[in-house]
């Protein structure tokens, strides 16, 4: 048996740790399928303003009319059965501000996922979404006093309609792609954040997304606005039970970093391998603003996600740092888009992927420098690590540069866990599994060191499970 065959599948303990599910005892569960009736029902139940209701219906028509993306993985995309998905499930009546008010089985689920514990230890606020709705929400009092708004998107629309209307679907237009249209039609939950001028939130806010039902469609919608000179770090995590039939997660995330603001958005995506994860994420970075997407994709059947930053103001800086892990049966089609739309803007893309067994990872990236955007600098680094004979990695970089005085650097590397590295470490007494783990951990180190400690530990643990021969 070759060394790579000895390695366990991805997330060896996923079923036990994340893949469990609760009995379904829901307040409201829409029948399967999407149509104008379902959209109308969602909007009515949420008591939304007219403009939002109309936007949903228009979006649904756009969804019907738009073709499937022709990139990524057409074969897998064709497997999505849109008629076999629940587009809206409301698990409980009212959102809770106290864990004790969350129904017992849902609370237990989040306990198992360690959310209340993390909240107490190192977070400034938490929203916990279960199916379509945020069931629990909190924000630290001192942040609230500073005027920081952090709530689920539905509450945001209700309580701050003027801000929401100004930005909603302005960063990512409904027509952007088939799945942004679907999200706009069926959206529910997600986070709304506004950080006032000059306020620096130095402790992360977190959202956790949990799918529980079989054939669930989760369409959270997130909007983060960092006003001038403010800063915010937002973290999201997600998991789902393992089922034999597919679920769909299709989020839209819009970020606005106004002059001199700093947004860091960290994702640790660990969906079960029956979840399609088709997400649109885009940010506007104004003058002197900094936006960073730190994007970890470990789970899901197929992920298609290319966090984008439009550098709209001079000297804005954008970074996308991503890691993808594609194990048996998985395809991670991830990447980044960087649009230099103003002079002297800078960007950096670091993409790392690990493919093992028959897993496949692709880097799909675009760097665009528009006419008039002088003095821009961009650096793109793609690193792929292959484990085993059947693992696959592809790189699709696109550069579209309209100015001459621009510094563009691009580097792409593919490496196998080299026999020589393994032999070297083995010759120092490390057995093959340990040696391989050390090589992989080293490979992802540049990503891990950007995570808050607690997440770094969790990510390392996930990877270690992946690399170990067996898990007790």
């Amino acid at each position, binding site marked *: 048996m070759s060394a790579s065959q000895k390695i366990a599948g991805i997330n060896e303990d996923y079923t036990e740790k994340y893949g469990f599910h609760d009995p379904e005892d829901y307040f409201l569960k829409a029948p399967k399928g999407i149509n104008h009736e379902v959209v109308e029902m969602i909007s009515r139940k949420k008591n939304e303003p007219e403009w939002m209701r109309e936007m949903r219906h228009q979006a649904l028509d756009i969804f019907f009319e738009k073709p499937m993306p022709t990139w990524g993985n057409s074969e897998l995309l064709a497997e999505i059965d849109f008629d076999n998905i629940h587009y809206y499930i409301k698990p409980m009546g009212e959102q809770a501000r106290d864990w004790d008010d969350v129904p017992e089985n849902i609370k237990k689920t989040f306990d198992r996922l360690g959310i209340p514990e993390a909240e107490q230890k190192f977070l400034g606020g938490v929203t916990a979404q279960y199916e379509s709705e945020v069931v629990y929400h909190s924000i630290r009092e001192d942040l609230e006093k500073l005027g920081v708004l952090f709530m689920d998107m539905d509450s945001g629309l209700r309580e701050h309609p003027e801000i929401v209307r100004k930005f909603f679907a302005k960063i990512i237009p409904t027509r952007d792609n088939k799945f942004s249209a679907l999200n706009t039609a069926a959206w529910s939950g997600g986070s709304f954040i506004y950080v006032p001028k000059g306020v620096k939130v130095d402790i992360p806010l977190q959202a956790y997304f949990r799918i529980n039902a079989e054939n669930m469609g989760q369409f959270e919608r997130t909007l983060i606005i960092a006003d001038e000179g403010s800063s915010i770090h937002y973290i999201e995590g997600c998991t789902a039970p393992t089922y034999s039939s597919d679920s769909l997660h299709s989020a839209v995330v819009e970020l606005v970093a106004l002059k001199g603001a700093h947004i860091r958005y960290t994702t640790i995506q660990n969906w079960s391998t029956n979840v399609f994860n088709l997400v649109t994420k885009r940010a506007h970075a104004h003058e002197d603003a900094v936006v960073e997407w730190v994007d970890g994709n470990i789970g899901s059947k197929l992920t298609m996600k290319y966090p984008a930053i439009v550098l709209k103001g001079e000297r804005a800086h954008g970074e996308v740092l991503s890691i993808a892990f594609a194990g048996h049966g998985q395809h991670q089609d991830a990447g980044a888009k960087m649009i230099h739309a103003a002079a002297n803007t800078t960007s950096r893309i670091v993409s790392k992927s690990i493919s093992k067994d028959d897993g496949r990872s692709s880097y799909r990236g675009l760097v665009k420098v528009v006419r008039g955007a002088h003095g821009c600098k961009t650096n793109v680094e793609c690193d792929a690590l292959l484990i085993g004979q059947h693992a696959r990695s592809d790189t699709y970089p696109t550069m579209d540069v309209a100015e001459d005085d621009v510094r563009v650097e691009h580097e792409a590397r593919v490496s196998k866990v080299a026999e020589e590295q393994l032999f070297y470490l083995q010759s120092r007494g490390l057995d093959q599994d340990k040696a391989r783990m050390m090589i992989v951990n*080293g*490979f992802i180190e540049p990503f891990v060191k950007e995570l808050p400690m607690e997440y770094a530990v969790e990510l390392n643990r996930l990877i270690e499970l992946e690399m170990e021969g067996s898990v007790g």
Partner: protein
Amino acid sequence: MNHSDIVFACRDLHVSVQDKDETKELVKGVDLTVRKGEKHALMGPNGSGKSTLAAALMGHPSYEVSGEIWLAGERIDELEPHERARKGMFMSFQYPVAVPGVSVANFLRAALAARRGVEIPVREFRKEMDAAFAELDMDRSFISRYLNDGFSGGEKKRLEILQMRMLNPVFSLLDETDSGLDIDALKVVSAGINLASGPENGLLMVTHYQRILDYVKPDIVHVFMEGQIVRTGGSELPRELETKGYEWLLESSAVGTGDAS
């Protein structure tokens, strides 16, 4: 084999490699015995198979090996490389590979724990590591650098010998340790090797040049050509090779080339 002063031996060792459909024999029957406190040198021209022999002795998976390999009275030719290492075999690589993202300190701690069979408390480990870095005249800043990543040739070799020093092997194989070293680095590395090889352990230096042998004096010198040991002598042999080259040995050798059967 129960001679208690023998730290390393191989008997009738053959090493071959699969090259497409062809099996190529690179080592054609080698016998070696290294006793406690002995320093051996294995010299030979480029391409004679010296490095193959060293890697095969350490258990490199690319090679088919037959014959016996003994370490401190135990047969090890069926063992994995990491098992050989844990039992006290060490190899200093001619070209140590880089492992990006893995710090020197983490690597050393893992290697030390593997060799000793117990985790070493952080403070104790730091102390040992600092001492070894001082001996090899290496800056402490190396401990947080990634393993061999961006190291110069000389830096890599120092780190190899530093590992040898810390791991305290029963038997060490040094593969072309002098290559890529300037004279100052050679002196430091040689001093490290001398410190690491005491009366209880054995050493086999695989080298093309006699240069390092001026600093680490061998007791026994073997000449290895075309897959076999063609001559074994004392410390006078390297000088002779330096002036006369290797070819005359093939002609005068009773062993022959191995092809001439």
